[in-house]
């Protein structure tokens, strides 16, 4: 299964590159999907511990705004990526110290509340953040090279792909490690973990900070792809979208978030193109269908199909 997962991941990566070459507009959508996939890996780590955060888009938003604010001063994509990620990680640590005391609905709601506080700050501090109009990100350099728009988009796409593979591998190692196993233990029975001498809060906190870091990476990538950031990035519906993607893709494998993100973006675009005024209904229908008929998400469906083939 693990070997199959690797092969499938590589095949998917190759497929994405081919698709991006064939249709230039898809490159944009796939970059966004990869970025969201990275953020959803973070959600998946928390899901392993049985915790759902309804506020994780805030780390995307914070990182995107960090990029937008710093871009005029340091127009260098790689520096901006690191800066955005750092801002998100530090905020993740601060928020995490607080929310990692709570579980389940309280954890989810506190994340939601804190994310909406930060959303409101981004929206209302009008003279600084330009409110809902948002801030434009000018084309930065990439590794010191001043690239044209099309080349820069390729560079960001490649960067997103490399980072996605990197984070997927890291998450796989992490989940297999004692730290990752302890996350599952929080879900099943936390007291036992404490009896073993493992501090549950620190286990959850480290996963939380990692997930904020991944959100930060996603935010910086999104900011440099769309090149216009608005507070909507941190709004609760954006957080809900991440949870939606996690459920759609399935939490069983690190490929799940990327399967989910690509499917989500494509369904949204094709639904929007087919019926511009009822795309929400189609998206909702897809989610309902997944919950009702494939509780393991898309990854669960693939796994099921493989087992059936292997069984006879």
């Amino acid at each position, binding site marked *: 299964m693990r070997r199959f997962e690797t092969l499938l991941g590589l095949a998917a990566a190759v497929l994405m590159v081919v698709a991006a*070459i*064939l*249709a*230039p*507009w*898809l490159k*944009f*959508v796939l970059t*966004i999907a990869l970025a969201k996939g990275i953020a959803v890996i973070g959600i998946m780590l928390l899901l392993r511990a049985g915790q759902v955060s309804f506020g994780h888009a805030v780390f995307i938003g914070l990182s995107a705004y960090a990029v937008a604010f710093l871009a005029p001063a340091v127009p260098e994509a790689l520096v901006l990526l690191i800066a955005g990620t750092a801002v998100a990680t530090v905020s993740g640590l601060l928020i995490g110290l607080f929310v990692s005391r709570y579980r389940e609905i309280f954890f989810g709601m506190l994340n939601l509340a804190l994310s909406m506080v930060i959303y409101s700050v981004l*929206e*209302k501090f*009008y003279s600084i953040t*330009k*409110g*809902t*109009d*948002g801030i*434009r990100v000018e084309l930065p350099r990439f590794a010191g090279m001043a690239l*044209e*728009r*099309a080349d820069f988009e390729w560079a960001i796409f490649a960067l997103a792909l490399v980072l996605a593979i990197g984070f997927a591998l890291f998450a796989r190692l992490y989940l297999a490690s004692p730290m990752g196993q302890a996350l599952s233990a929080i879900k099943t029975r936390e007291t036992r973990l404490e009896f073993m001498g493992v501090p549950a809060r620190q286990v959850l906190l480290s996963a939380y900070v990692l997930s904020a870091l991944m959100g930060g990476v996603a935010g910086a990538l*999104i900011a440099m792809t*769309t*090149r*216009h*950031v*608005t507070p*909507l*990035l941190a709004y609760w519906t*954006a957080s809900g979208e991440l949870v939606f993607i996690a459920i759609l893709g399935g939490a069983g494998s690190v490929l799940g978030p990327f399967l989910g993100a690509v499917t989500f*973006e494509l369904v*949204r*675009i094709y639904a*929007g*193109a087919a019926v*511009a*005024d009822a*795309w*929400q209904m189609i998206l909702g229908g897809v989610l309902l269908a997944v919950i009702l008929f494939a509780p393991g998400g898309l990854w669960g469906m693939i796994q099921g199909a493989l087992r059936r083939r292997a069984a006879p």
Partner: protein
Amino acid sequence: MTDQPSLSRRGLLAGAAAAVPGAVLMQGSDANAQAQKPAELKIGITTFLSGPASVFGVPGKQAAEMMIDEINKAGGIGGVRLRAYFVDEAPGTEHLVGEFRRLVQSEGVHVMLASISSGSCLACTPLSKDLQKTTILWDCATQRIFEEGPQPFAFRSQGFATPEVLAPLLYLLKTKPDFRTMAVINQDYAWGRDSWEMWRAGMEALKPGVRVVAELFPRLGAPDYTTEITRLLAARPDVIFSGHWGGDLVTLARQAAERRLFERSLFVLPVAEASLPILGRTFPAGHIIGTRGDHWNNHPRPKDPARLKALNDAYRARFNEPVIYPVHHMVQAFNALKAAYDKALAAKGGAWPNDAELAAAFRGLTFDSPTSTITLREDGQGLEDQIVGLSTHVDSTPYAIPKDMVIFPAAMVSTPVGMKSVDWLKSLKPDILGQVPAPIAG
């Protein structure tokens, strides 16, 4: 408009891309390539189809469908039939920017009509430059678009925030100059903040010493204004400025009417028109109302009364709704498009224009609006007259309409090319009041 270096770069890029299978899909992305007459003229239109701003977006879409049917029935533009691709703005910038690219790069649309929301326009306008695709900003108002740098492929076929704020201010100063205190209640987002900043800059230049007794910024989509109305009743401002629109204005006006705020203070509402049919008789007489242009159905001096009447009748017959300003804005965008294509076709002796030639045709273009004519300035901004009036009730219409209307010539109330709106408003001199035309009675 055509810069040589970009040509050679594109040549190189195209050469490199030709080595990659499937690169054929990238053809036609060059604005200066020879254009073939297309089988159909594809138009991408971004508008709100869901959410609170769909009160503007859906009439806009309906108007677009009506215009397309009308133009196609008459044989299309240059003999080519029109086809629209609609995109919902509601999911946010990131989705919209992706859709813009999809329409241009995958569907191969020839022209984009972008956005109601100023945030959407600010995101789409730079994209028009990147993708070298002519983009008509059909409804958004933010003054930032053309004040923050030149836009070679973007054109606004309607007015913008500055004249829409300045015209009601001048109307107030001209007709009811004896006020000493004022308050503002605006939605807490970019337009709400911008419009107040501009109003304040203009007011301090033209009538210094007015005391601002309350500055209220309730959130967008607030269901209840009890607190704000209580504050306004207590503060007793002579004048209340509010840039509210759509459902928010309906809520505010209903709750203010219930608590008799309209009787105590004079309201100035620059975006009132679209909400008046819903408010019916609830909206009282004697307040200053605007319509983001000269779009009143009882326009006192339309250039062609038959044309305005035909639009009103056709729209009502098809959709069973009165015409509101987004319908005018969409009609203007299509008229601009048609006029630009006609101009570009004539310039090439009937050959189909490429993207650069089409964009060149827009600069300085004059086209018909339902009520008047609009000229696009050299920076791409349209000069649209503004009509402000005093609300009144007549028996023939079941809702408030304006009387004593003043037609403000666009050039008089628009920021000059190359200036920032707030700086310009601060530099206004009181003699501008002398230029305000006389109200048209009735």
